[in-house]
């Protein structure tokens, strides 16, 4: 940066287009570093929080998964023992893994439902605000309450669903939803969909809001039918929001913890056991934090893979739409 004083003095304070090449390169470099520093500054607060409360705990879990440990007992190296037990001996793990995958694969249903609702309330339908509010209402409700009410709704004898089904003559014998190995998981998934559809809806609504209207106008002028407008404009522009929804769907396999715990506790016989409930039981029920850590690492790996696949599916970069 050895610029002669005369050059510096001459260029100070003016935005002259004609500048010696050396100055432009310097300016660019300084701009780049300034930009990089700015980006870093903007990312820093969030990164700090995540470092403290997500990354560090993940590291703790990773290290712990290779040890035998409990509070008050010194750690002993365990090598791959915890993982061996998990993959070779733990039936509950495999059941929980299957259930978790089913849970995640059911999320497109909720997303599609939410998309339909979001489109409906985004239009000039009168009373859209009321519909929006009613559908969102379930999300802020405490999961414990959701679990308790749905447990009652599904009850074999006193429950409302069986009451209606038998009353309308659709079935003769009541269905033991939460006591049946076949029905339990779908029942829990349905209750979960009821709770989160509002969440998906507002994400999609936010996304719909940012689609420039002039695109639709141009398409209408060109004579494109509604389906083409939807497929060619709406869906592609919604890619980022759909990606967020996909990730929420993946997250849901463990944020639904409270709901599953209250509704079935993972039962009957682990039919509704998710990886997260198994982790919790191992950690705080059987006081095996080391094993629970290994389960956490395996679940984390699984979810990272799924998120990566979802990212690929929306074209990378979290589905971002480059606007002109």
């Amino acid at each position: 940066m050895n610029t002669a004083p005369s050059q510096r003095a001459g260029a100070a304070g003016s935005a002259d287009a004609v500048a010696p090449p050396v100055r432009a390169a310097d300016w660019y470099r300084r701009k780049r570093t300034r930009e990089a520093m700015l980006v870093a500054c903007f990312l820093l607060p969030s990164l700090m929080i995540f470092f403290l409360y997500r990354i560090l705990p993940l590291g703790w879990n990773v290290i712990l998964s290779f040890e035998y440990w409990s509070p008050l007992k010194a750690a002993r190296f365990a090598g791959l023992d915890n993982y061996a037990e998990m993959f070779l001996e733990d039936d509950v793990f495999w059941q929980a893994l299957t259930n978790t995958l089913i849970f995640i694969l059911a999320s497109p249903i909720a997303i599609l439902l939410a998309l339909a609702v979001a489109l409906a309330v985004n239009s000039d339908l009168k009373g859209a605000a009321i519909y929006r509010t009613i559908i969102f209402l379930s999300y802020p409700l405490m999961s414990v309450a959701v679990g308790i009410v749905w447990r009652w709704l599904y009850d074999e004898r006193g429950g409302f669903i069986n009451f209606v089904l038998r009353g309308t003559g659709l079935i003769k014998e009541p269905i033991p939803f939460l006591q049946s190995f076949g029905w339990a998981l779908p029942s829990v998934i349905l209750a979960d969909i009821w709770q989160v559809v509002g969440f998906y809806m507002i994400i999609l609504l936010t996304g719909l809001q940012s689609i420039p209207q002039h695109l639709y106008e141009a398409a209408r002028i060109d004579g494109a039918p509604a389906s083409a407008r939807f497929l060619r404009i709406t869906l592609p522009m919604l890619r980022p929001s759909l990606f967020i929804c996909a990730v929420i769907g993946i997250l849901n396999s463990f944020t639904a913890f409270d709901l599953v715990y209250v509704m079935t506790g993972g039962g009957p016989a682990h039919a509704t056991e998710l990886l997260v409930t198994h982790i919790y039981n191992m950690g705080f029920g059987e006081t095996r934090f080391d094993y629970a850590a290994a389960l956490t690492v395996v679940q984390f790996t699984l979810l990272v893979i799924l998120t990566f696949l979802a990212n690929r599916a929306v074209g990378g970069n979290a589905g971002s739409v480059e606007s002109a």
Partner: protein
Amino acid sequence: MRRRSHILRHLVMALVCALMLIPFYWVAKTAVTNENIYAYPPRILPLKPHLYNFVDVWYLIPFARYFANSVIVSLIAVAGNIVFNAAAGYALTKNFAGKRIVVLLFLSCMLIPFQATIIPAYLVSARLGVLNSYLGLALPLLSTIVCIFVFKAAFEAIPASLQQAARIDGLGELRILFRIMLPLAKPAIATNIILSFIWSWNAFLWPLIITRDVTMQTLPLGLARFLAYVEDTTGALYAFVCMVLLPGIIVFLMAQKEFIRGLTSGATKG
């Protein structure tokens, strides 16, 4: 033809809403009576409704205290979320070296369930000296990845030409963020407010772990009182749940007017 499709849409929406409301109806009905929810056949209309359960809730737990604590914690969480998430979301719209890694890093941060982080999170908070305090309660919730990506998506939809124009005018990045980007991303702000409020308001396990003083507890922790001794699903529990639900709905109602169509589309004409 327009009319018919309108009526059809109304009908479908009404049906969907009715289905969504059924569980609520039962929560509300049990909150105003003390009926055994397992009575068969289920009674559709409440018998002798009364409001005593709500009064019970007020007196059985230090409601005002818990409510105030929850308000403070949620205010901190919402404020932190908007500032931090907007900043991070904005940074993620720029191209910089290692962006993909940072995006993947953020995404993977989400994939760890809270239940697996309880002990280390507590130890971290203990080290920071924020146990049993409002900051300690709010700290893990001060930024959430989903909301960062909501901002990122909203900012990317804003034409780059606007940002260029601002830069040429000599505005710093911070000013660009606050003066240009945020006002055009009102739905994203609304979503952030709603979600971070709900998550901090309903947080149960973290406040349970990090508070020892009863005076620092937040509203959801009062739940224990209604599930104490016997898992009592009669009125008081449901009344409590309704009272906890109310602020979330109010926040939603206030914030949702940002979802009105057309607010952001007028950014650039052509």
